[in-house]
């Protein structure tokens, strides 16, 4: 949509019957995509603000980054890489499901979706194990702001994925109940966008978690602190 062109129209001069708004939503996907985009916009603001406050908070003397020195838990980020791999495979699987759904290969779409569900669930379990690991090392939620941000950000990220999983499971169930392939295909396509988005969010969080104090200082300097 050409925003400038639209806003420049002179409606008082034009009394024509007008065009049809949008012909592409015969299967009901377009409105849902728009709503999803706005939702992800709101989520982006939320994570951005968390991150900005994280960087700001890192400039106070009590802050200790979770990476950088050898005794810090994410000095060796292997666990994070494993978790990232799980979510990445989940994303590949859902992309495959979306591809098969478009080609109307139902069986493959459902199988790929099942893979996506399993790997995403594994990611969530692995995240909880990561929490337990940090907790066992003495990195409690309140003992340092970096810990607090770690728990809060991973929790919110995980909650959104749980929401996505519920939507996917609902899509699967209603597919078997109502046998509406269009509805199933739409859900998968929307979820694919959602999954990729939260994978990117995870990568940003990963980068933040594994940043050293010096990196935070540089980031903060770039932000004007």
């Amino acid at each position: 949509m050409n925003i400038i062109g639209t806003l420049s129209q002179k409606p008082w001069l034009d009394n024509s019957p007008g065009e049809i708004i949008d012909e592409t939503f015969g299967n009901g996907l377009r409105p849902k995509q728009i709503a999803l985009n706005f939702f992800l916009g709101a989520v982006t603001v939320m994570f951005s603000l968390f991150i900005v406050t994280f960087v700001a908070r890192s400039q106070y003397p009590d802050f200790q980054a979770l990476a950088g020195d050898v005794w810090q838990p994410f000095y060796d980020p292997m666990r994070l890489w494993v978790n990232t791999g799980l979510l990445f495979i989940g994303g590949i699987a859902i992309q495959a499901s979306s591809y098969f759904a478009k080609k109307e290969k139902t069986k493959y779409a459902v199988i790929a979706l099942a893979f996506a569900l399993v790997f995403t669930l594994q990611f969530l379990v692995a995240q909880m194990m990561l929490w337990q690991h940090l907790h066992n090392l003495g990195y409690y939620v309140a003992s340092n702001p970096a810990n607090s941000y770690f728990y809060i950000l991973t929790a919110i990220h995980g909650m959104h994925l749980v929401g996505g999983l519920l939507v996917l499971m609902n899509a699967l169930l209603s597919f078997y109940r109502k046998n509406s392939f269009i509805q199933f295909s739409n859900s998968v396509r929307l979820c694919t966008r959602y999954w990729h988005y939260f994978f990117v969010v995870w990568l940003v969080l990963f980068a933040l978690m594994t940043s050293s104090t010096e990196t935070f200082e540089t980031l903060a300097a770039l932000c004007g602190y």
Partner: protein
Amino acid sequence: MSYVAIADQVSELHDPQSFITKYVWSQDHKVIAIQYGTTAVLVGLVALVLSGLMRLQLGFPDTFDFIDPNSYLQFVTMHGMIMVIYLLTALLLGGFGNYLIPLMVGARDMVFPFLNMLSYWSYLLSVIILMASFFVPGGPTGAGWTLYPPQAILPGTPGADWGIILMLVSLGVFIVAFTMGGLNYVTTVLQARARGMTLMRMPLSIWGIFVATILGLLAFPALLVSAVMMMFDKVLATSFFMPALVSLGEHSETVGGSPVLFQHLFWFFGHPEVYIVALPAFGMVSDVLSVHARKNIFGYRMMVWAIVAIGGLSFVVWAHHMYVSGMNPTFGFFFATTTLIIAVPTAIKVYNWVLTLWRGNIHMTIPMIFAIGFIFTFTHGGLTGLFLGNVVIDLPLSDTYFVVAHFHMVMGVSPILVLFAAIYHWFPLASGRMFNERLGQLHFWFTFLGTYAVYLPMHYLGFLGVPRRYFAMGNTDFIPESAQTLNSGITVAALIVGLAQIFFIVNIIISIRGGRKCDKNPWNAASLEWLTPDMPPHHGNWGKTLPEVHRWAYDYSVPGAKDDFIPQTTPESEVVKENT
């Protein structure tokens, strides 16, 4: 593919079958709008009573035993939060947004009716949680509506245990409710408009609601972030916002947190919130003025641009609420500049409202007098905003009643006057009946003059340096005795204004039950909502076929046309000319 309007798709029609699905678990946007509106007005009445109690204390200190410093602070806090979030935001977007969007753009319903229903019930849950805080040990939070840490969660502040937790939970639920509703509003505007309803043919009410909703979707996350972090600080003893401090003689365990960080987050939401309330009001008042002046809105395009520009600028002015917070002083220059810049599109709107009236055929109906009243109060509130936007003027005035007067004029009285204008204007559409004219007149004059009697003297109190938020002034040398006399007068006026709302409530109740049945389109309006086959509109709004739009919503007193309005659905070939 043949064109099938979204609301016309079979799966989207959800005819209610029983009383429960028709009026309780309803997915009809009109019923949801009335549910939203009724809940918002009821909770708003609670906030009105709280303001009356505050005024009793301020006007007549040492008189009422049941108001102590703690309860006074709780009244202040709950009054502010309820009015801004649970009344104004909910009524303007949840109420009017729901009612008007599908009708004004020519849709049968919202695009996601189930989500819409969920939005209302989540909103109701948030209200119940908030109201529950009156009944928990310690009562509701008394931290001030801005909930600034560290005091909001420290012992010594009323409601620092359960009250603040319930407030934060309630806000979280409200934000979820708003998001569900907001996604519906924007998607319906973008996707479910009738044929011919281009964006630039939409009435300004819809433009205001549309842009305000986008603001809400982008600004409420800031409140959510601050609420989540404060909840962690409160419940899990983290130190996002909590510095090292001594509380009640004991050193806290927290170190290093930044209270100013909270303020930035809060106002990053808080200032767009002003426009989340104001933009729908701007839009609706434009429509009311145009219809009742029988004249097209002056500068429609400029009005749309102004709405969009105000929406954008509202995200870069937030720290003008924080000149006295101890933030970096160099920020002040930037935020003062942006604040003055946002006055430009706002002033354009005021000029255009006045120019719409100029040489119009003004009908002094009840909606119209409320709308004209709004132009006065908004101009006054806006002008004092220009004072406070400047750092050097804000510093001495920031903690005085001048600020209270300013924001009540601009954000309290003004949108409320528009709400009344809108309720009276669209009441015949929603009920099929007219309201009582005399009660409406009484309601307007008591409210309009009464609010001036309340807030004009308050500016003067601010100049005297009378501090806001104080339970009692005590023996303060720099405040003369006359200030107390003025305070008593303000209280009397405020109580009269509060009681005058009975005219409104009685009017609505008796008019719904026994008001004169009115013809279709009693105001001879051109916009789509008045052109439904039935009045009030039935489920699905448009009967068998959706309307087709041929023109904008402001064809009033068109030269050469016989009637003084041309409905949006009338094609050029069917316009009756004067000489025929």
